[in-house]
């Protein structure tokens, strides 16, 4: 049995302990000391996850039984942490993004004052625990810890009513999601008498009845709420529009995607065998949800003029693309989703950092007010345009590799329409970002359109006299973009991720790892041959996006019939109405979504 070099529980315990210490002494510490200590704790977590990842890659996957409670026979009596490359990479990504966010907020955020650092560290610990645990109820606990920390972080700027609305809607919908997940877990416990994911999977086996289907519906819908899949996505734009910039980076970069990770993990560990006769139908169902998400969020993204809200809808759109990649099936689909996830986290994180730079430097976040204000920021402009290229999944960004894998998997599993979805999603989101870039940094056209929620704007996060840009404002976004490109330039990590995804997708391998602590080496074929097609399509998406953005920026010089951009920019009334800001509506949409998913599952997947 290979034991990890250091206890993986440290990845959770160290940030938690530092958060407690920081919270205890925060009254007596200066702001700089808080910054320094917070950053140190987060870097320590990064180092711990780094060591864990090294161990998982070199020695293979292993299992850590907390408290030393090894299973008795096939009955797990304690909580297991599964150390395999994918979960550990996500934990490491969380630590990295948290470190960058803390660096960005260096003496920066005056809102919330000294509550920021402990909350960020708790959030980090929750994300680490969430990606490492192998126990279903423990997953729920970290889901709740993550949610609670997120609610609090979201409401940091309490000086205006909008943040309270955003965090209230966020808290209500995500709490409902949490209880829905718990109900699903309880139903599974009732039939299997187990909480360890591998043991539940073993115990369910081929059993396929309404109970398993309904439990699956509840758990999936709960985590899809976190993942912001339509119709569970309504909280996300509200929460992002009001959260402070460093928090947005963590929300969009990782928290949302962890919902998808949980769906993938639970599906492959628990339900894979049970659904094996219906895999295709389930994939079609998930794909239908993903396609709705991409289309709806893509159009909404282009119609927004509040920078953070626009990026938030772009996150929803990309979460839809990731779900589509997962739905394209098998180990390859999983690898596609994870590749896309990691690369997207960096690109989207970078873009959010840049929106924070604009808010800091120009004291505004709406496109109309920012018009031509960014002319003196060449570095931010370059990074922003790079981000737009990245969102279209064009080279040289690692999102391309994910897109290629997804298209390859869709081809193998005869799933139609996936490539079109990637082109539409990429084109619309990059068009929105390009449009903002042209308006803000180049000052092209004659002023931007606007919409109702953009007019509310956002209070700046820094003191008014301080508008200077410092290195720690531009290093995090630059590093993010650089990493997204580096992952493309040096794709050695792909082989590791590919094989880890193959092991994750195989229920038998997961079982074996959990019970014996040993690694099952699995290999997966490469999707190199799909890359040229993906390059062509992503460039098509980028060109389309550029055309739409140009037609929007120069709308007044174009003939009326060609004003496609301006038409899209006005948005569609029913879609805007859906985003009503009323918590009752959001819960109603969730109820309808669960009912729809459940009925579809019962009809399509029954024996």
């Amino acid at each position, binding site marked *: 049995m290979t034991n990890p070099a250091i206890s993986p529980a440290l990845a959770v315990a160290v940030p938690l302990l530092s958060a407690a210490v920081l919270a205890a002494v925060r009254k007596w510490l200066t702001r700089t000391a808080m910054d320094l200590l917070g950053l140190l704790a987060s870097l320590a977590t990064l180092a711990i996850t780094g060591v864990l990842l090294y161990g998982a890659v070199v020695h293979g996957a292993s299992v850590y039984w907390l408290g030393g409670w090894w299973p008795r026979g096939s009955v797990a009596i304690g909580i297991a942490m599964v150390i395999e490359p994918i979960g550990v990479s996500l934990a490491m990504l969380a630590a990295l993004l948290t470190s960058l966010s803390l660096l960005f907020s260096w003496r920066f955020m005056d809102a919330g004052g000294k509550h920021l650092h402990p909350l960020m560290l708790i959030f980090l610990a929750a994300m680490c625990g969430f990606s490492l645990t192998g126990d279903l*109820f423990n997953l729920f*606990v970290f889901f*709740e810890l993550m949610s*609670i920390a997120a*609610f*609090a972080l979201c*409401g940091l700027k*309490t000086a*205006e*009513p*909008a943040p*309270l*609305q*955003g*965090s*209230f809607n966020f*808290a*209500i919908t995500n*709490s*409902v999601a*949490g*209880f829905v997940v*718990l*109900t699903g877990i*309880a*139903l599974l*416990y*009732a039939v299997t008498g187990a*909480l360890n994911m591998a043991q539940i999977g073993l115990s369910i086996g081929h059993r396929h009845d309404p109970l398993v289907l309904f439990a699956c519906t509840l758990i999936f819908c709960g985590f899809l709420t976190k993942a912001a899949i339509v119709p569970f996505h309504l909280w996300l*734009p*509200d929460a992002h*529009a*009001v959260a402070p910039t460093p928090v947005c980076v963590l929300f969009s970069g990782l928290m949302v995607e962890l919902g998808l990770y949980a769906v993938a993990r639970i599906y492959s560990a628990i339900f894979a065998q049970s659904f094996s006769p219906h895999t295709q139908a389930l994939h079609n169902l998930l794909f239908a949800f993903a396609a709705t998400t991409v289309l709806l969020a893509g159009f909404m993204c282009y119609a927004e003029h509040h920078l953070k809200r626009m990026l938030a809808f772009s996150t929803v759109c990309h979460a839809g693309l990731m779900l589509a990649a997962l739905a394209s099936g098998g180990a390859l689909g999983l690898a596609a989703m994870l590749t896309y996830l990691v690369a997207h986290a960096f690109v989207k994180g970078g873009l959010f950092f840049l929106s924070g730079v604009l808010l800091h430097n120009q004291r505004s976040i709406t496109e109309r007010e920012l018009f031509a204000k960014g002319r003196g920021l060449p570095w931010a402009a370059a990074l922003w345009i790079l981000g737009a290229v990245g969102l279209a999944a064009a080279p040289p960004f690692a999102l391309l590799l994910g897109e290629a894998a997804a298209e390859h998997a869709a081809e193998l599993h005869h799933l139609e329409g996936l490539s079109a979805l990637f082109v539409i999603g990429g084109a619309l989101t990059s068009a929105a970002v390009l449009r903002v870039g042209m308006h803000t940094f180049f000052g092209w056209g004659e002023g931007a359109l606007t*919409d*109702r*929620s953009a007019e*509310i704007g956002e209070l700046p996060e820094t003191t008014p006299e301080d508008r200077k840009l410092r290195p720690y404002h531009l290093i995090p976004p630059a590093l993010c973009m650089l990493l997204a490109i580096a992952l493309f330039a040096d794709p050695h990590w792909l082989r590791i991720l590919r094989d880890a995804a193959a092991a994750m997708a195989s229920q038998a391998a997961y079982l074996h790892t959990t019970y014996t602590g040993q690694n099952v080496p699995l290999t997966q074929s490469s999707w190199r041959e799909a890359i040229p097609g993906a390059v062509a399509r992503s460039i098509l998406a980028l060109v389309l996006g550029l055309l739409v953005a140009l037609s929007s920026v120069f709308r007044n010089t174009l003939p009326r019939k060609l004003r496609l951009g301006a038409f899209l920019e006005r*948005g569609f009334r029913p879609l*805007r*109405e859906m*985003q*009503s*800001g*009323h*918590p*009752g*509506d959001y*819960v*109603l949409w969730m*109820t309808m979504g669960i009912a729809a998913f459940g009925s579809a599952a019962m009809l399509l997947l029954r024996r």
Partner: protein
Amino acid sequence: MPGILHSLPYFVAGWLLLCGLYGLVTSKHLVHAVVCLAILQSSTYMLLLAIGYRVGGAAPIFADISTSKLVVDPVVQALMLTDIVVEAVVVALLLAMVVKAHEKSGSVSPNDLRTLRG
């Protein structure tokens, strides 16, 4: 156990879930909405308790009974304890948000909270 009772607690749990959701959807007062969330959560207590119950089982405390006696499932009870804490905590945080929103806007109706739309 009489046959008619075989699924009773599960139905009650489903009913409470429905009640909570209905209250949240139709609520006109933010504090009312938060209390409805608490009702929604109590559905999970009901479900967990029903799952672990055993006819004739004793409470899982071996202070004064023999260890060979049949007991109800202790694991669900541990889960419920966690669940209760989570409920109290979520309610506390949400109420703080409501209080703050009331301070800022002077209203407790979800309809007046809608500054962010579209």
